């Protein structure tokens, strides 16, 4: 599984969405599945999958799948 698939799976697991619904355009608080509680679970999932510890500012900024990729790149996670 490459990092793109790992990311998709992490979002899918945390938000309880089918993987195909995890697209770059998916945004926080625009679907019922991605509320503040799910956001916390998502952060835990991403930290676990990519073995990173995110800064609070990055958690606040992580408002979409696209944004998550940009932020994770700061932690040396690369997406093809």
């Amino acid at each position, binding site marked *: 599984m490459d990092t793109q698939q790992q990311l998709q799976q992490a979002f899918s697991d945390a938000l309880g969405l089918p993987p195909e619904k995890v697209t770059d355009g998916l945004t926080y608080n625009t679907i019922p599945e991605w509320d503040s*509680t799910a956001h*916390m*679970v998502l*952060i*835990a*999932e991403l*930290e*676990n999958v990519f*073995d990173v*510890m995110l800064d609070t500012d990055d958690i606040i900024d992580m408002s979409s799948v696209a944004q998550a990729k940009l932020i994770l790149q700061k932690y040396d996670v690369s997406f093809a």
Partner: protein
Amino acid sequence: MSASLNTVLQSASVLITGASGGIGQAIVAACIERGATVFAGGRNEEALGAMQETFGKALRPLVYDVTDEHAVKDTFRQLQRQVSDGLAPPLFGLVNNAGVMLESPLSVTSMDKLKQQLNINFLAPYQHMQLASRLMSRLRRGSIVNIVSQVSEQGSKGMSAYAASKAALTGATKSLAKELAPVGIRVNAVAPGFIDTPLTEHYENEARQKVLQRTVLQRAGTAREVADAVLYLLSEQAGYTTGHVLPVDGHFCP
């Protein structure tokens, strides 16, 4: 009591701040007796080293200042690295025990002293809860216990800064109990009254008697009694308890 209630801490780590203080040491001992691995946080490297000699691998010292935001983050990274390397079980418990008690009337309380109270007694525990809850939510389980004070519940002349800082922590405890319940984390507090520790050693006999006269049980509490209450709230025996402030005060009547 079922076996499972007794074993939940055996495959768990607990981070305890202020671990080398009077109450801290009692909490460490109680958790280790129950089989937990304890991450013992504190600034006193020598005292933590001595505790490690006593408890061996069950105690993993973390030397840092709880008010240093960056040091706290590094400490959590260090903690998680030990978990990832299989040196310790996943973090299940957090005990925010580090604190300082300022006795100072309003007119002579400097802003620096007030900020110090808030930094140590509220902001530091808050950051610890923020970081610990992220690790706990990976497994959808955890238990946080904050050490507050009966002073914040009842008020005390000459202790407004301390009372306010602990009251802030009580408020956070009750709010986070609601916020973190969906991810399986319970948040409670223990509110000690007059406890025999190095923190209360300076009380002169007359002052001590005054306090004890207002305590229904007519004696000071022990650090072990506070530790037992913490242990109860950490454990699955308190699995249906969250957002609670448990007094350990001999029924103090101000």
